[in-house]
């Protein structure tokens, strides 16, 4: 028989009730771990950042006003910790020239001058998954986080803007560029494999 989910409140967490702490970790740890891995952390770093996220949340519990869901609030803490960790090792990200790359694919009338190539039915799903996963590693952290929250977690644009500290317009541009980069990278990998 499946066990009933434990109901808990922020007040229970303030009182450090063990069953509330356990339920919170059970409810949110898998998503946070997936998010930390998605923004490009190693498994060891991801686990460290997830632990630090819970610790930081509990130590600053009074700052949580419930304006966002607990999940997005926790993801906000996680994202900033992950970004700080990666900033130490990350090389400067060059200028984002994906728009120019894509623009060159169209003629002045807006029709395809260099149509999209790349995998279709002939490529194996596992092969495409491998390429996409590899390509996603090349995205900036903010784009990966935006993509994760939008496509995987199904968060609203408002919540994502809140977590990442960007405007709605910036978010649209980030997601647009992330998808374009992934597609261009997918085509490149497909061409190399032929």
């Amino acid at each position, binding site marked *: 028989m499946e066990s009933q989910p434990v109901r808990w409140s922020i007040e229970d967490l303030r009182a*450090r009730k*063990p069953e509330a*702490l*356990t339920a919170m*970790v*059970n409810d949110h*740890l*898998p*998503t946070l*771990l*997936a998010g930390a*891995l*998605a923004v490009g952390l190693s498994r060891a770093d991801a*686990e460290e950042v*997830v*632990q630090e996220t*819970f*610790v930081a949340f*509990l130590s600053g519990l009074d700052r949580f006003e419930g304006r966002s869901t607990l999940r997005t609030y926790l993801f906000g803490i996680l994202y900033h910790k992950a970004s700080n960790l990666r900033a130490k090792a990350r090389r400067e990200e060059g200028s984002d020239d994906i728009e120019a790359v*894509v623009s060159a694919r*169209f003629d002045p*009338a*807006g*029709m*395809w001058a260099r*149509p*999209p190539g*790349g*995998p*279709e039915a002939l490529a194996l*799903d596992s092969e*495409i*998954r491998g*390429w*996409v*996963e590899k390509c*996603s590693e090349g995205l900036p952290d903010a784009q990966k986080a935006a*993509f*994760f929250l939008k*496509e*995987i977690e199904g968060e609203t644009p408002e919540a994502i803007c809140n977590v990442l500290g960007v405007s709605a317009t910036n978010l*649209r541009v980030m*997601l*647009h560029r992330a*998808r*374009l980069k*992934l*597609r261009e990278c*997918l*085509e490149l990998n497909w061409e190399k494999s032929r």
Partner: protein
Amino acid sequence: MKLMMAFMPNCREVAKTLCGGGLASEPWHRRLLIRLHLSRCVFCARFGRQMDRICESLKAAWAEPKGEDVEAFKRRVIERLGPP
């Protein structure tokens, strides 16, 4: 039909929609025109299918991790957060 063609989005505009908020973010009349374009343009249709495959692939790659190591990690975190 001629009137419809006059308002038909070009490939660049269709690709921009597919990379942006998708068809759902467009008003119904625009969705209709884009669907019509996709039914006639093999390149835009391919572009759209690739966008779908990218999302599906990332959903699989970024799925929540499961297994005994995740359960063990949960126990370590709960231990750390619990009362001293």
